[in-house]
């Protein structure tokens, strides 16, 4: 069965999530990957959105972080201060799942501006929950489409800390979470070198060449000695994902006024 690069990315990301984990979920690709995991191998994964909806089980994907479907299917809904104080900062989140506009070789994420902060070339939406998800979740996963503008040597602006300038700088600064464990892209999986914390290619998706990935990465990407080839999406995952996205697109297209 054929599949798109985006499907490959989402399914790969979903497969990295474990049943029972407590995930703080960003909207968009992270939300898609987390719900796919919940509908396949991880039925007891706990999804938390920053709108205060805890343990939600939406039957279609929310467009916004606070769609009614998240509240309706939650075990409980708490206030926004509570979700950030008691859950995220309180150390109750296993995995923070983020996207972003730019990421650099040390996993720092920019979702604020392209160009100088006070005189931006492109003003992006900004931080949202990302800085504290990136610092306070036990581990962070990042999902982003691979291209040369997004994967840069150094981000224009650090919205959310990865390993900063690499090595043990993150730990030395007292940031509690372990930091980004992997970047899942539409071309492969990048993981940090245990010493330098520079992200390296550890898995390549079938049909993608190393050169193609290097061409789409803004730093001199190192290739892991144990480079793996990512597993091809199974029929089951493709079916579940397409069904989810189809139902979602129907629901979001028709005005509900």
């Amino acid at each position, binding site marked *: 069965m054929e599949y798109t690069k985006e499907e490959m990315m989402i399914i790969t990301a979903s497969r990295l999530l474990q049943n029972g984990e407590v995930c703080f979920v960003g*909207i*968009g690709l992270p939300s898609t990957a987390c719900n796919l995991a919940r509908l396949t191998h991880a039925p007891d994964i706990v999804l938390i959105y*920053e*709108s*205060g*909806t805890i343990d939600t089980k939406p039957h279609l994907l*929310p*467009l*916004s*972080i*606070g*769609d*009614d479907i998240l*509240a*309706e299917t939650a075990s409980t*809904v708490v*206030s*926004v*201060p509570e979700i*950030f*104080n008691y859950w*995220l*900062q309180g150390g109750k989140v296993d995995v923070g799942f983020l996207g972003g506009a730019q990421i650099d070789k040390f996993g720092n994420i920019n979702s*604020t501006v392209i160009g100088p*902060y*006070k005189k*931006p*070339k*492109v*003003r*992006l*939406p*900004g*931080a*949202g*929950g*990302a*800085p*504290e998800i990136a*610092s*306070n979740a036990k581990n962070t996963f990042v999902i982003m489409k691979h291209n040369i503008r997004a994967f840069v040597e150094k981000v224009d*602006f*650090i*919205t*959310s*800390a990865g390993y*900063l300038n690499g090595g043990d*700088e*993150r730990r030395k*600064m*007292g*940031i*509690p979470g372990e930091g980004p464990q992997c970047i899942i892209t539409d071309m492969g999986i990048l993981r940090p070198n245990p010493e330098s914390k520079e992200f390296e290619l550890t898995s390549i998706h079938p049909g993608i060449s190393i050169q193609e990935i290097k061409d789409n990465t803004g730093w001199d990407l190192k290739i892991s000695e144990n480079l793996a080839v990512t597993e091809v999406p199974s029929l089951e995952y493709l079916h579940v994902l397409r069904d989810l996205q189809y139902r979602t697109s129907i*629901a*979001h*297209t*028709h*005005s*509900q*006024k």
Partner: protein
Amino acid sequence: MLDKFQPLSFLIQNHIHDGDQIAMEGFTHLIPFEAGHEIIRQGKKELTLIRMTPDLIYDQLIGMGLVKKVVFSWGGNPGVGSLHRLREAVEKGIPTPLEIEEHSHAAMACAYQAGASGLPFGVLRGYTGTDLAKENPEYIKGVTCPFTGEKLAAIKAIRPDVGIIHAQQADKKGNIKIWGITGVQKEVVYASKKVLVTVEEVVDELDTQNQGIVIPHWLVTGVALAPNGAQPSYAMGYYKRDNSFYKQWDEISRSQANFEEWMNVHVLSKSVNQIP
């Protein structure tokens, strides 16, 4: 109905002044669009607008040139992309230059909590290593734990002149009930000097046995009936989020001219709903 109940036009006219700091909250849910539209119709200006997620309503106020400064933590169209009016105001000063004060969600929620708690600042473990803290030392500072010596982030409390929220129900005394996602609705009410509330419905008695929060009437400056007052966002139990419109907004708002035309037809030429 008591004096607390007034037409929305009256509440906006009497309680919102040019130059005010206004927080219209509602985390995706219960966004007070009708109140925002009435502010636009009345042409209140030089406003400082505070809101975690500016959403379409602040995009509209900004595009109408009524806003001097926006305080926010995520300024996009959720699930869709940019808020084009906000973005063009920041990038190019169209239609007028826009100051920004920018936070993370965690910090801004903390600042509201501090305001609600009568404290001058809030404390969080956040911002470490990020550029938001480096660029904005005037409102993101550090504080040291006197027990452990740990350095934490300190954020200035938010105390708006006027807080505006939309809620599902009021009873006849003006007690307010909200259920579903409550966001920072409670905090903005406690933190604000004046509080205006629009509601879907006025009921004889609130069902306090059901899930949700109650805002006691004596914290509320004025209440206006405004059915569908949160559209195109949603009011749980009344109507769903109009996700389709949020997607259409991307096109409507892309150019200033197109935006203004839409506003003329859909906001400026309409009059506010009033209590009969």
